[in-house]
């Protein structure tokens, strides 16, 4: 238990005294906070994640993932922790778990392969068969940019794109969103773990949990008007997205604080962090704060001053959308 006390620090609004808590006590406090209506977000960091190389160390990525999931679930053992993320019936019934990554920024700024494979490894350890894991994104180039090889052979972890799977014929709509959804989400996957990468975005301000759903639909370009507001919020209200994509493991190991969503090495930064949670709005709110802190550190104007505040976050939290909370007082942020 010493290790947990060593790494756990409650930040922001949580204000919990965890120093003497046992493992079970820790889980109980988390449950109490959930009951109190606070959304949990965990940020796990490892300053030595990258060492001297451009890519993070694979073992450290895996350890960081375990730390994040342990803190989120209150279960130290990875298998026990993951059983609280993935419902047991999905595993026993052989359902497919999707990992929606983000390779749009190309090789330099995409969801790290090491993280995706670490998640796939943990899923297999709780009984998910390799062929029941699908790594996917918008198109084959994005997947290949992340270092993956396209594979549809069900005896291995599968990896294929939205474009390859095709779209439902029927259009879905919610608010301004009029879209067709990839069959990977509607037919293949019973649950999707959202795996975005934290980036500045030239129109939306910030792209992270909710914006990653643009890769799910046939015409994401139609949702970019007015700084992607209310496009992002409306899209995430589409029932199949809201219901199946309910856990996010966000890659904030590398990020761009300006010039995104493309790769701009001169604006690259290594927060060396993972962000996990179920509340997509709370995750995006915290992600926004991270980007703003970095921009302030390098003397850049705020996103609001730059004319592109991520207004879609507040929209997603409003009564009509009700996708989560953006009020910092209602977010229990744990930094471990």
């Amino acid at each position, binding site marked *: 238990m010493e290790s947990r006390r060593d790494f756990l620090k409650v930040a922001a609004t949580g204000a919990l005294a965890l120093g003497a808590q046992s493992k079970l006590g820790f889980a109980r406090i988390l449950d109490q906070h959930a009951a109190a209506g606070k959304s949990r977000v965990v940020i796990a960091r490892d300053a030595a994640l990258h060492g001297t190389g*451009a890519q993070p160390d694979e073992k450290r990525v895996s350890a960081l993932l375990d730390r994040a999931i342990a803190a989120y679930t209150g279960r130290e053992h990875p298998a026990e922790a993951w059983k609280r993320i993935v419902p047991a019936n999905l595993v026993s019934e052989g359902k497919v778990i999707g990992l929606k990554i983000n390779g*749009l920024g*190309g*090789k*330099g700024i995409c969801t790290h392969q090491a993280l995706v494979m670490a998640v796939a490894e943990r899923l297999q350890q709780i009984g998910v068969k390799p062929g029941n894991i699908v790594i996917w994104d*918008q*198109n084959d*180039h994005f997947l290949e940019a992340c270092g993956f090889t396209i594979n549809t052979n069900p005896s291995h972890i599968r990896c294929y794109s939205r474009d390859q799977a095709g779209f439902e014929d029927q259009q879905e709509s919610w608010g301004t969103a009029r879209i067709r959804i990839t069959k990977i989400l509607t037919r293949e996957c019973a649950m999707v773990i959202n795996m975005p990468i934290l980036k500045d*975005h*030239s*129109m*939306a301000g910030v*792209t992270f949990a909710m914006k990653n759903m*643009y890769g799910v639909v046939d015409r*994401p*370009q139609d949702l*970019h008007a007015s700084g*992607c507001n209310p496009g992002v919020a409306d899209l995430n209200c589409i029932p199949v997205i809201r219901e199946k994509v309910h856990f996010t493991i966000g890659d904030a190991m590398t990020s761009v604080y300006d*010039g*995104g*969503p*493309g*790769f*701009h*090495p*001169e604006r690259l930064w290594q927060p060396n962090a993972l962000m996990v949670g179920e509340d997509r709005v709370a995750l995006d709110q915290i992600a926004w704060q991270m980007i703003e802190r970095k921009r302030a550190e390098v003397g850049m104007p705020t996103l609001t001053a730059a004319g592109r505040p991520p207004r879609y976050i507040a929209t997603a939290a409003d009564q009509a959308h009700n996708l989560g909370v953006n009020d910092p007082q209602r977010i229990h942020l744990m930094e471990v």
Partner: protein
Amino acid sequence: MMIVAAVASTGCKKKGSDPFPASGAVAGWEKTAETRTFAAKNLSDYIDGDAEQYISAGVISTSTSDYKYQGQLEATVDVHTMSDPAGARKILETGVTSDAKRIAVGDECVQYAQSITFRKGTRLVRIVAYESTADGPQALLALAHGVEAKL
């Protein structure tokens, strides 16, 4: 090769000619992927929300290909064809920060440790390397000159 040489010597190049140097055309650089081209209406398939700023600046099409230097340093070359030189200038100037180094390539060029962006006429070229290496800036500059020569 004779035809290329003849065209180059007259300064009259075929509009829309391939601006991507072939493997070995620039010392140490190998072209590692097929060229992909996106019309303005499909540009978001390649660069998502970034497409809007190019569209508002009058982009007609964007072509891209990957390269590798001495088998190690990976880079991507994007060539944007704009409707007029002002569009290329607008995009280039939008992203420039104070630490950019101005160098002589095309009509205007800025270089950072891992990237070079230059414009020439209606073309805007961005070359980005995925690692920072000691010889990277010089290698990127050579590749930029190679692309410039084909515009």
